[in-house]
């Protein structure tokens, strides 16, 4: 346990009883989770278990049906619009599908938030974009392409560059390494760890890749049937003693989790 978090006692993000249903399909059913400041948290769970929905609730993109979300001890669901926008200024997000703006060239995508906040001029944005693109292993010339001209993995990396360019305080990565080759995956993992160390940011990642989860996570949590069923150290993944988590981390067919038809 990190002493600072101990002293404050206040987690960066605290979820209590978070619930969300789409129609009569309950996706989240009372999620409780604490995320420590300045650490990497990895969220695991089967496909369709509600990981992306959880993150979108924290970001204010989906309104939960019940429960509370606190960031830095403040209830975000009770915030006014202005306050919420100020909070969002300090948060970065990599969407699962990249969600790049296809009407804008890559460099404008990367520097979108800096431009929106007027922290940079359009003239300086190209150079800044080249610098951030280099961090994700892309050449400066990629900046002049349009997102539609990139491969899936390149789009993911541009999305990553866009998420970290404004140096946010909290960053969400929805499957940052899915669709990347193993070496590039390791490079991106290194980058995420670096962002946490260098910026002191809090990183919340969703991943299905256990090697990656151990690299980028200090803590890990597993979501199953709408609830958090386990939290612990990411390093322990694979032999946590929890049969659900161990089966999931080792990718075994036999175990308490049976493949079920998802609704």
């Amino acid at each position, binding site marked *: 346990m990190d002493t600072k978090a101990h002293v404050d006692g206040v987690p960066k993000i605290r979820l209590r009883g978070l619930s969300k249903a789409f129609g009569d399909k309950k996706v989240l059913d009372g999620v409780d989770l604490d995320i420590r400041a300045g650490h990497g948290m990895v969220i695991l769970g089967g496909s369709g278990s509600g990981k992306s929905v959880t993150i*979108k609730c924290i*970001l*204010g*993109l989906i309104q939960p049906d019940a429960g509370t979300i606190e960031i830095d001890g403040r209830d975000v669901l009770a915030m006014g619009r202005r306050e919420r*926008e100020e909070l*969002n*200024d300090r*948060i*970065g*997000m990599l*969407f*699962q*599908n990249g*969600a*790049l*703006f*296809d*009407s804008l060239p890559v460099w404008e995508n990367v520097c*979108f*938030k800096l431009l*929106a*906040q007027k922290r940079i001029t359009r003239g300086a944005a190209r150079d800044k974009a080249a610098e951030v693109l280099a961090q994700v292993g892309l050449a400066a010339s990629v900046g002049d392409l349009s997102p539609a001209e990139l491969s899936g993995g390149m789009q993911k990396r541009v999305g990553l560059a*866009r998420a970290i360019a*404004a140096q946010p305080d909290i960053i969400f990565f929805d499957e940052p390494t899915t669709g990347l080759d193993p070496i590039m995956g390791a490079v991106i993992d290194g980058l995420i760890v670096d962002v946490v160390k260098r910026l002191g940011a809090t990183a919340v990642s969703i991943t299905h890749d256990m090697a990656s989860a151990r690299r980028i996570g200090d803590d890990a949590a597993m979501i199953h049937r709408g609830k958090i069923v386990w939290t612990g150290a990411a390093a322990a993944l694979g032999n946590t003693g929890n049969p659900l988590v161990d089966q999931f981390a080792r990718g075994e067919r036999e175990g308490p989790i049976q493949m079920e038809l998802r609704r």
Partner: protein
Amino acid sequence: MLNPVAAIGRAVLSACREVGALVLFALEALSHLLRPPFYARQFLRHLAEIAYFSLPVVALTAIFTGMVLALQSYTGFVRFNAEGAVANVVVLSITRELGPVIASLMVAGRIGASFAAEIGTMRVTDQIDALTTLSTNPMKYLVTPRLLAGVIALPFLVAVADILGVMGGWLIGTTKLGFNSAGYLKATLDFLEVIDVVSGLVKAAVFGFVITLMGCWCGYYSKGGAQGVGAATTMAVVSSSILILALDYVLTEMFFAQ
């Protein structure tokens, strides 16, 4: 369930909810006109898209409309020995009615569809959510500049349509119907009143608002992947076309006394 009164009640209620939501959507978009930041770059892009790139379509339809109008009214008036009124009928019909309606219907097909498709795609690929996480209000960035561009571009297009429509009538009048060129133009101008043109331009501004609003609204709330975006696009074009014709009557009624 079998009670028809309840079914009608439900339908009316849901229609009211829909209209209420649309009005709130429009009001929120308009409220961003007053609060910075302003996205001038977006506005200019859409202005060019509507005003400049619709010019060929609008020009062609206006010319042909004027030509047909001259021919048809001549056919009718010749039976009363009133051929002299052709120029007047052409200019009145074009400025008050056909210019605004035909130009707007053409733009509804082009722009309503393209706005709904673009915003709808942004919705289903999380780009609208991404805007929110990138310190940008999606209504302010996507909707407000489009509405403003529509309200400004349509009167311009209709002014062009008015001129070209009259020219189309003049072309047929002088080449086919045996009118004297100067006489035809003089008859056109002598008869025209300011209100004829102004009422057409006011209609155009209203239609520009309707087209862009329906395009944005249908796109903004589209869901369900490519199919949903397709449905939103169809919905935008159909609903704005109907609204244009319905509002055209309402506005004509308002200007009728003049």
